[in-house]
């Protein structure tokens, strides 16, 4: 019955104005991509691509963005849960603080990270003295910089889902003898799975494209901190053709992940969280 209603809704004729505006939006996104494809040096593409530097940057990018996505999950989901579920004074201030890096110019974020975690930074000096940990200009530093700008995307997505979900399902789990941790793992997380996937993809995409914070905090050393976006940015001056090829590769990878995940996960998003 429900699916009948939905299919009728989707077959209803959409308003023309909306369609036209939507088409303009699609064109707006598609045109720059076409521009790249148009200017790409297709005959030499393979050579640019198989250059050591390019492959190294690509590998580093995938590696770092994967780790920063993991870090975003490990710390971001508990943060989202706390913001959504624990009523405390200054909740709003904490949320603003934790999502500030979304609006901050990434370069500023990188500089701020440097002052905090750099070798002479607020905390960085102790990290160095006590543990011998130096983050700036290391691969770990890239992950830190990427996580700094990427995690908020996961946090706000997951927090919204936690606020929207029917908390009585958690009550039901508690009455069945589930501890709050067991309930969180077996009931809460599965219930917000679409948001976890969406937030994870957003965070990963943001990490993959991260440029400003990385270059200011971690620098631009091929093999250790030069990620794809940095390689593209720098090649634009020295070798624009190579830059275009690298950019297209990045776009292709992101595109494949976004499309793949969409079909696999977002198709289920309309599924009701509760059985009636």
């Amino acid at each position, binding site marked *: 019955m429900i699916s009948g209603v939905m299919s009728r809704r989707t077959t209803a004729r959409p308003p023309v104005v909306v369609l036209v505006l939507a088409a303009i939006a699609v064109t707006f996104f598609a045109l720059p991509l076409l521009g790249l494809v148009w200017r790409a040096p297709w005959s030499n593409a393979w050579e640019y691509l198989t250059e050591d530097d390019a492959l190294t940057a690509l590998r580093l990018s995938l590696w770092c963005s994967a780790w920063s996505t993991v870090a975003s999950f490990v710390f971001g989901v508990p943060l989202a849960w706390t913001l959504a579920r624990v009523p405390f004074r200054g909740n709003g201030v904490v949320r603003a603080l934790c999502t500030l890096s979304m609006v901050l110019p990434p370069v500023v974020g990188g500089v701020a990270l440097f002052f905090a975690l750099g070798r002479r930074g607020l905390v960085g000096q102790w990290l160095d003295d006590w543990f011998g940990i130096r983050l700036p200009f290391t691969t770990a530093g890239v992950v830190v910089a990427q996580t700094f700008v990427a995690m908020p995307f996961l946090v706000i997505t997951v927090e919204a889902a936690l606020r929207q979900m029917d908390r009585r399902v958690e009550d*039901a789990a*508690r*009455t069945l*003898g*589930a501890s709050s941790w067991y309930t969180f793992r077996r009931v809460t997380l*599965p219930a917000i799975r679409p948001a976890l996937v969406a937030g994870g993809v957003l965070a990963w995409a943001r990490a993959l494209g991260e440029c400003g914070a990385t270059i200011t905090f971690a620098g631009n050393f091929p093999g250790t901190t030069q990620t794809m976006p940095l390689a593209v940015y720098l090649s634009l001056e020295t070798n624009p053709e190579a830059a275009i090829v690298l950019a297209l590769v990045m776009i292709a990878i992101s595109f494949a992940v976004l499309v793949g995940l969409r079909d696999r996960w977002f198709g289920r998003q309309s599924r009701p969280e*509760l059985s009636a």
Partner: protein
Amino acid sequence: MTLHADIAVQLGTLDLRAELHVADGELLALLGPNGAGKSTALRAVAGLQPLHDGVVQVDDRVLDQPCAGTFVPPEQRPVGVVFQDHLLFANMTVLENVAFGLRARKVSRADARHRALEWLERVGLADTAHDRPAALSGGQAQRVALARALAIDPRVLLLDEPLAALDVGTRAMVRRDLRRHLASFAGMRLLVTHDPVDAYALADRVAILEQGRIVQTGTLAEVAAHPRSRYVADLVGVNLVTGNVVDGVLHTDRGAHVVIADAPAGPSFAVIRPHSLAVTRDLPAGVSSRNVWRGVITDIDRLGERARLGIDGALPLTAEITLAALDALALRPGDEVHVAAKATDIEVYPA
């Protein structure tokens, strides 16, 4: 061996103070209008709503007693709950739903699945074990919710409006099923409902909760025979008159007089059954032994062979007359009528 709950909870505009006792093997229905605090009382017993004062005790074990600092969290209480819209876990199969409580209690996977399947067989749903809850009908989902709650072997089973989420067509059948399955559970059962039909079908005893207070308890027959509030009177379908008895006459606040057979003086309730009332246009003859009140018809409901008249006056009443009488008198809303009742038809009991 009882559930004893002396519940005091303030929640927004709700001020709940209710004392409940459920004996072993008994099913108590907590009956009341929406917003009376029924679900809050149930949540307090389950541990989902901490008490502000009072005590919740099952057998000899205190589960919640703020003044002693005792609070047993819901997951450690011997209490199973069937929720209003079942609240099955959509991401798990039916079998995993029923096994959930056992798994949460560290029962091995194989053992939990085995016992869950037994429960599904008991409620006749073994063939749906590997379906998702979304594939179940409302009645099936409720049986799964019941099996899930009973699989953890609770001492107390709580049911929150178990039939409210079902459509009218299936409700009667599901109610019969539920009655049968509840009968097989020997522990204490507390049912929250706003529907007296559920209470009739399922409960041994009812407690009427209105605006956070228990106004009446007893078997449904006892409660129906001597309603003590407008709500219960409306549920049962009788007129309830409150007033003060002096010399065989009950005086209401609005200045109406009701002559009664005999009753001790003092604040009292009087029940006037709608079908015991006679309605006429003119003042009836031979009024000596009868009560006659004047009023204006406010509404007329035709119910099969009979009609219910709402009559407003010094003593607002609902009268029930035959359709033949209604047609003979050609009554319409707005008409002025006389309503008569024999003193001996009016039951009076102390307030």
